[in-house]
């Protein structure tokens, strides 16, 4: 009886939250269903009608997508940028994070304050000078150019996050390693990196998602080097006529970060909290 009463009392709350959850799930699901509507019918049909007649669904749009060289190339480029810059960022940030946490050098705290200051600098302030720099070197329209830009702008957060984590590693462990005669490099590779793995994982996932999802940097410094967001963006300029390409491309572009997020959400949330509870 008591439980029945409880269920009844909780019903409005549950119902409300169900509606909210639906509001958050339906749009993405709608994109997926849109991507399954055959090319000819896409302009005539609301995607919710497809649910009623599953036989009309087709993966043809995906087949067309993977037959489209521009878009498959864009997916590969996206992966190169996202993976490459994440590895590089994690390594450089870990080095610096270790220095700020465990090495003694003049001006250390002052420099760290600078890093904290750089945390909120909008990347718009760098767009124009870097554009000139890339044009005068051979970095314009290259994967490397995009990777370096992302690494640089990921560094303040990366150093901040890792330094704060490394500094929490028990001092005893560090001391005994030093007494045993381990060099700083040995300590870094054998001790800090393994012990700092949770924070490194957070940072890596964060940076991967951030750069996989980037539009503005690639739009500025890429012409033929196009990640998927830019490729979709150029399709979007002729929106309406080619939604049968935009919908599956958008879905593929979000499915990968979504999978990464669902697989590693614990680390993602940790990074988020560490970054915002500053």
């Amino acid at each position: 009886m008591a439980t029945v009463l409880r269920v009844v009392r909780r019903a409005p709350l549950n119902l409300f939250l169900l509606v909210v959850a639906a509001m958050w799930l339906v749009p993405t699901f709608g994109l997926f269903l849109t991507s399954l509507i055959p090319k000819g019918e896409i302009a005539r049909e609301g995607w919710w009608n497809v649910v009623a007649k599953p036989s009309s669904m087709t993966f043809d749009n995906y087949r067309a997508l993977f037959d489209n060289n521009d878009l498959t190339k864009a997916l590969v480029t996206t992966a190169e940028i996202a993976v490459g810059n994440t590895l590089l960022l994690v390594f450089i940030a870990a080095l610096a994070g270790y220095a700020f946490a465990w090495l003694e050098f003049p001006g250390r705290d002052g420099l760290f304050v600078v890093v904290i200051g750089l945390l909120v600098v909008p990347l718009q302030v760098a767009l124009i000078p870097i554009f000139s720099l890339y044009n005068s070197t051979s970095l314009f329209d290259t994967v490397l150019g995009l990777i370096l830009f992302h690494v640089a702008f990921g560094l303040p957060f990366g150093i901040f996050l890792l330094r704060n984590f490394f500094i929490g590693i028990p001092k005893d462990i560090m001391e005994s390693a030093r007494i045993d005669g381990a060099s700083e490099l040995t300590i870094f590779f054998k001790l800090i990196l393994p012990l700092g793995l949770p924070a490194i994982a957070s940072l890596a996932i964060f940076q991967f998602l951030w750069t996989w999802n980037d539009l503005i940097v690639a739009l500025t410094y890429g012409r033929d080097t196009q990640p998927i967001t830019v490729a979709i963006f150029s399709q979007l300029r002729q929106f309406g006529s080619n939604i049968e390409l935009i919908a599956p491309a958008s879905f593929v572009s979000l499915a990968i970060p979504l999978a990464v997020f669902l697989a590693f959400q614990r680390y993602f949330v940790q990074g988020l909290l560490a970054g915002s509870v500053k």
Partner: protein
Amino acid sequence: MADSASTVPPAAAGVHARGAGTDDGPSAAPGGPWGQRAMTALFLGPAAVMLVVWLVYPTLKTFVRSFYGRDGSDWVGLENYRALFTTDTLQTAIQNNAIWVGVVPALVTSIGLIFAVLTERVRWGVAFKIAVFMPMAISLFAAGVIWHIMYTQDPGQGAVNAAINVVDDTFSSAGVLTSAQGSTPELAGTPERGLVLKSSVRPGETALLGLTGIPPAQVPEGARQAQAPTPRPGAITGTTWRDFKPGGGRPGVVEPQELGLEGVTVQLRDASGRAVRTIKSGEGGAFSFEGVKAGSYRPAVGPETFQKPFAGVSWLGPKLITPAVMIAYIWVWAGFAMVVIAAGLAAISREVLEAARTDGATEWQVFRRVTAPMLAPVLSVVFITMLINVLKVFDIVLSVAPGSSQDDANVIALAMWRTSFGGVNDFGLGSAIAVFLFLLVIPVLALNVRRFKRET
């Protein structure tokens, strides 16, 4: 997800451990002070080089560049800054960004707070959190594409308008004819108030309600030849028909090939203009009011007939585009606010809450007096983070707003990009916009630095 809260605040953990880590300095590294320096340079060098080349130097360069003209050779002083505040699209961008700042951080924080508090009370709270948090993994650009599709104006295709249509339909339904007019001056009025016959009719007489201006597509399916009404004692009979045939025909006369209009709302109005009877025309457009009391009446075509069907809200049009983008943006960021606030909630000691409840505080009092104040630091972090994000909003505007309404949806970051790279290619003005954006985040920068200094 919920349990990650307890493992987190590394910032706090770091500060705590820091004392232990630095109290008695580093142990001597092999190689003496020079070896130590080389070691520091090795660890810090790559990061330092990258930060200087890609962040520090460009920031200074942009600042200087903002005082030069389009191609960078001529010193223009503050001209770019004057243009920033006087150019139309840039003013729109600044105004829009001001609206963003005023509306979005507060809304995201409140929604996050509400969700965080409510999910604690249901068993499937974790599943709910994942659902709401999921858009965080998606690019703002892809989220924009999703909402662009959701906002399609035609209610047959745009889900948002389809949902509105469902609600709308339960209150009013579309009429059969939306553009019809009286075929003779005898039948006059407006679609809003109905078309009324000028001369009055008595029981036993007939009424001809001829309509024109009906596109073939709106003629009800299976419409049949209209028949002139036959008078009957005690009744007012009549016909509503499409008073038009190929070649024209005579207005006001029912002729062969002219179709009767079924389903038209016909009213019988008394001398004061009040509708005393309302019926719908039947087959062939015929209608009859039976057993009408003696007197003079005026038949009319009721306004229901002309009700336009719901054509869809123009979310992507110039008027609503900014709110439309904001909704999409809030959809993305609500999960962030919820998760961070939920972590803050979880950190509040249960004992304190229980103690308040034992003392007889109501749930609302517990929230107002205990939870909210203890949550204040977390709420301010979420709010400030959103403030910065909102100042930099860019991708989602590009993907939600079609090209035609991008001027109306303009924001500072987008204006900066379009001015510098989107065809105008004015690096001077673009730099000025970037500097303006930078100045806007300076207070937050100062806040972060102060908070760090306080902690150490």
